[in-house]
């Protein structure tokens, strides 16, 4: 890929961050510490994110899983000031990108981060693109915000990016409007926009949820490829455990605005140390076993309007449902193994999943691309 536009400028921050990753993989790219986000609603204050801490190493793919309302999207959106304030408000916490504090940073600083160091792929490509502006120009705009290049140069870069994400006939496509694109193609355009300035961090907020199943696997492939080509660390938000098994190295499980468990994919899938994670794994359908029914987690997601003094999962938990300590005391996120943390008072009592769950989840996510015809397109363009 030729980098004709503004390559000198956007290459610079990358060069400085790459050695840092090389000589000390322990120096994280992103450090989130004790993040609290509240929303004022008519029903009261919603504690959407309630003390979330995590780190992302350069180039690492961190999967964030959780049900709807677990705070996973709000967490990622509030890192760079993408939540609406009001009603949202970051009440506490720190977000450091490459050592630079972003909470309370000037809008001018945040604007440089957004689209420059951090690219975002949103959930619904149908509505995330401006309907009245040509796709190429929207992608070019992402370039022009951060680099002084002409409109023609930005357009040329947009065509390159569309090619990179496997959009056939990129010159033609760049001059079309979003409604002339299919859902999968629009999501590719979104990805092109997100990686336009070679970000160090890519946030993918349920990027495949709004797409057809056959398209999902293709888009995942594109994201993986884009991530590998740009070397960007990725925060991959999803409620699909299969996708996590396919794509991520580490997982963070969220529930009720808090982190329940975090660890490597292998650890989490094979030896979960939190009953909620175990419940999620147990509810996965199996392709290899003959099951009459799925196994749901009993109860419903927590009401984030009220702050429970104990563990948010306690009312639904098979381990802690009847224990006073779980009701009264919030379990801290404690290390239960190397790089494996769990916010549970009784991690050792976690029911263990069937042995083959990781393979099954991965198979589930990988099954689709073989059926999609356009997957061959993709290979031609890569």
């Amino acid at each position, binding site marked *: 890929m030729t980098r004709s536009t503004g390559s000198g400028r956007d290459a610079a921050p990358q060069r400085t961050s790459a050695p840092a990753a090389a000589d000390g993989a322990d120096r994280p790219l992103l450090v989130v510490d004790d993040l609290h986000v509240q929303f004022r609603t008519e029903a009261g204050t919603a504690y959407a994110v309630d003390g979330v801490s995590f780190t992302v190493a350069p180039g690492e793919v961190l999967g964030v899983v959780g049900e709807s309302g677990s705070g996973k999207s709000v967490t990622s959106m509030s890192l*760079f000031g*993408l939540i609406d304030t009001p009603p949202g408000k970051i009440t506490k916490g720190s977000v450091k990108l490459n050592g630079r504090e972003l909470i309370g940073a000037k*809008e001018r600083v945040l*604007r*440089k*981060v*957004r*689209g*420059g160091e951090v*690219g*975002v792929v*949103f959930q*619904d490509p149908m*509505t*995330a*693109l*401006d*309907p*009245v*502006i040509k796709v190429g120009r929207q992608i070019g*705009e*992402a370039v022009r*915000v*951060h680099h002084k290049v002409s409109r023609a140069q930005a357009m040329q870069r947009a065509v390159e990016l569309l090619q990179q994400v496997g959009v056939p006939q990129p010159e033609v496509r760049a001059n079309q*409007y979003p*409604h002339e694109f299919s859902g999968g193609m629009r999501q590719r355009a*979104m990805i092109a*926009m*997100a990686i336009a300035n070679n970000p160090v961090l890519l946030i993918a907020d349920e990027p495949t949820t709004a797409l057809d199943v056959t398209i999902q696997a293709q888009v995942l492939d594109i994201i993986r490829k884009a991530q590998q080509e740009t070397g960007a660390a990725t925060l991959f938000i999803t409620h699909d455990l299969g996708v996590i098994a396919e794509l991520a190295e580490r997982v963070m499980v969220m529930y009720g605005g808090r982190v329940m468990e975090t660890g490597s994919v292998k650890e989490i899938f094979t030896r979960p140390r939190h009953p909620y994670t175990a419940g999620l794994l147990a509810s996965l359908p199996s392709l290899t076993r003959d099951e009459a029914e799925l196994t749901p987690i009993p109860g419903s997601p927590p009401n984030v309007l009220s702050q429970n003094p104990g563990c948010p999962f306690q009312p639904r938990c098979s381990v802690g449902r009847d224990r006073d300590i779980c009701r009264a005391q919030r379990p801290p996120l404690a290390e239960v193994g190397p790089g494996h943390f769990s916010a549970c008072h009784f991690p050792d009592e976690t029911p263990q999943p069937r042995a083959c769950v990781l393979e099954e989840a991965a198979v589930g996510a990988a099954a689709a691309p073989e059926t999609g015809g356009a997957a061959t397109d993709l290979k031609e363009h890569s």
Partner: protein
Amino acid sequence: MGAYILRRLGSSVVVFFIITIIIFTMLRLAGDPVAMLVPPDQYNTGTAEFLAQKRHELGLDRAIPIQYLAWLGDVFRGDLGNSIKNGRPVSEIIGERVGPTVELIGLALILAILIALIFGTWAAVRKNRTADYVITFISMLAISTPGFFAGILAIYVFSVKLGWLPSAGMSTTGVHSTVDQLKHLVLPVTVLGLSLSAGLLRFVRGTMISELTADYIRTATAKGLSKRSTIVKHVLRNALVPILTYVMLQIPLMVAGAVLIEQIFAWPGMGSMIVDYAANSDYPVLIAVGMLTAIVVLAANFLADLLYTVLDPRVSLR
């Protein structure tokens, strides 16, 4: 596209004819222009005969459909007829009045759009904050104030009390200067413009608020665009389609609003003329005015449809 334009033009012509039939019939049924020629206190024995003869001369004793066809034939020959009151050609009467009205409405419309876009956007961005409340309050006040009252108030304050601006006409008799003409424009254009802007502002605010919550706005922010660029490059651009529709629908109401404003400021436009001739049921003049208004409205709607295709790529005309 070409086929659409042709079809649309065809339907506009049909609508136009229906409008002329309705206007003609209603005006002919509504009053007797001949009776208005003789004041009631000058009636005498010969009057009835004189009026009957006059009606016959003008062809008003024929059936209305026949009268309509005769009138239509004249129109096709380029003859809009003569005023019954003073016998002057209708085209001449209207011709000398169109200019001032177009000037007044045009300038007022530009002012209204500017005010509505700027303050409507401001209120939308500051939704439920002080600026929004102040703008909303003032616009509600403007909506609830009748144009004639605002006009009289403006004259009282700026002409009578402060003496800053002239209260009537397009220029001071005997004075030929641009400054003088501009001064005469200020009050009528401002009053008409403000009264038009209030409703439009509310509409702009509502449209902008819904556009501001659209997902593509968050995408623009995530790309690193400033709020201002997002609003100018994305929100306004998207809001333009509904706003354009609204403006086009306002045009007939503007003509009605102009009638009042012209009366108050003695503006020598069509508005004050309409009142004069309507008092005499001088139907050739009134029908011509109705026709002209119908043409303007049809043309505005047609233009709006064509502009949609430019502003919104999802709209294609077939």
